[in-house]
């Protein structure tokens, strides 16, 4: 997982950027997946984004030994123009809404596996639930 997630300081996803195509990608690839440009630079992606799609997984998929249910969705990183497929810390879809601010967290799973996940930003969540 170290190829996907940098845990040396605050967690960050490791992606790529091609100056000639102007596009970011994830996970890090040897060439730009959109243009084939051969000038990819390794970058740390933004740790904050907005929720674009979400659901919950209610039965363990093949090879998975972590908690059930778990949240699953897509978060938009506007700065990089990317949509990231991710686990979500919130397993109840009714507690999430489109566009809400999310923050990257490290998710510790069985077998010393650290997956990436996104959690609702606490401040914004408190604001939404009180309104």
């Amino acid at each position, binding site marked *: *997982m170290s190829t996907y997630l940098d845990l040396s300081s605050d967690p960050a996803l490791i992606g790529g950027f091609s100056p000639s195509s102007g596009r970011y990608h994830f996970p890090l690839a040897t060439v730009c997946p959109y243009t084939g440009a051969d000038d990819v630079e390794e970058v740390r992606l933004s740790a904050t984004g907005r929720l*674009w*799609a979400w659901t919950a997984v209610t039965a363990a998929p093949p*090879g998975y030994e*972590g908690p059930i249910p778990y949240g*699953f969705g897509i978060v938009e990183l506007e700065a990089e123009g990317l*949509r990231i*497929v991710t686990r979500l810390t919130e397993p109840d879809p009714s507690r999430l809404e489109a566009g809400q601010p999310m923050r990257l967290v490290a998710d510790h*799973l069985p077998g010393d596996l650290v997956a990436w996940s996104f959690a609702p930003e606490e401040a914004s969540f408190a604001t939404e639930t009180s309104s």
Partner: protein
Amino acid sequence: MTAVEIAGVGLHPFGRFEDQTATSMGVTALRAALDDAGWSIDDARRRVGAAFCATAYGGVAAGHRVLGGLALTGIPIVDVEAGCASGGAALSLAAGTIASGQHDAAIVVGIEKMPKGIIRSSFFAPWQEQSGLAATPAYFALRAQRTMHDHGLTKDDLAALVVKNRGWGELNPNAMFRSAVTAEQVLGSRLVCEPLHLWMLCSPNEGAAAVLLRRAEGGSGAVQLAAVALRSHLPGHVLDESTPMAGLIDDGDITPPTTLAVRDAYEQAGVGPDDVDVAECQDTDAARELLTWSELGLCAAGDQRSMLHGDRGQVVNRSGGLLSKGEPLGASALGQVVELVGQLRGTAGARQVDGARVGLAHTIGRGANASVTILRR
């Protein structure tokens, strides 16, 4: 290019068959296709130049086992895997050998005997499985949520789609689920991944289908293979069937593989979406079929609800679709061809679309791969 026609089709029902192997089901389907063509095994030995076997789980030399079961080895036999589009890919390769003048006839057979539950394959890496990222229905659910959002659809529309397909499935003796359902029952079935309930998802299962192609014989009256196209995805769509870990926010200009394939097919056949009288399309889940309608041009984006509740929606998946038949990966695309050949011959019985002359079959799945076949009579 030499024109290609359908000499015969055959099917082994789709479902669960403890006493059958993938090979034995394939032999049954192929034998039925030869019988349908009126060809003896001797005829096939003389005329068939190549065979293509569509399967994802059949293992090494799956096609050789099927062809060997009818003493038809000696010719080139090639197994073809292209996810849910495997049958379309095999059909495309076989048609090419005839269109190019290489062979006079070719066999296409699709076989599958799948494990129960969520499809497990080597598609995902072990770390993705361990991270819970191999949750296939969850990807379908995310696409369903976005499809509902972008096309103005509700869970009631998804349920209505299931009611439509299961209603036709009740009339198909080769389907796995042969009972009509109500919207209340669909919405009351177990929630798998919001918004998708169990009955909105197709079931992996078992079955086989076979198509015998030959060089067109003018005036034979046979169903013509007007087009067959196979395409893969362009990168950037986070929710396409290539199941990437990321995609672009700015994805509006990325043409989906289904649209790439159908454009090729319409051009080859010289028809457009309004000419399609009857269609079989990929209903992996209820929202997938509705999204596919717009990707095929059968309706405009956002017009799915009116098509669903009108007559036009009823000409799609007269077989009952995968929601009724289940999905044996290698056989499913060829099963669609078997259904359409019946429709164009006017022998589809209670499921018949009256006067159907142009039929379209579509699959989309892992890869991503999309196939579109157009038949005409």
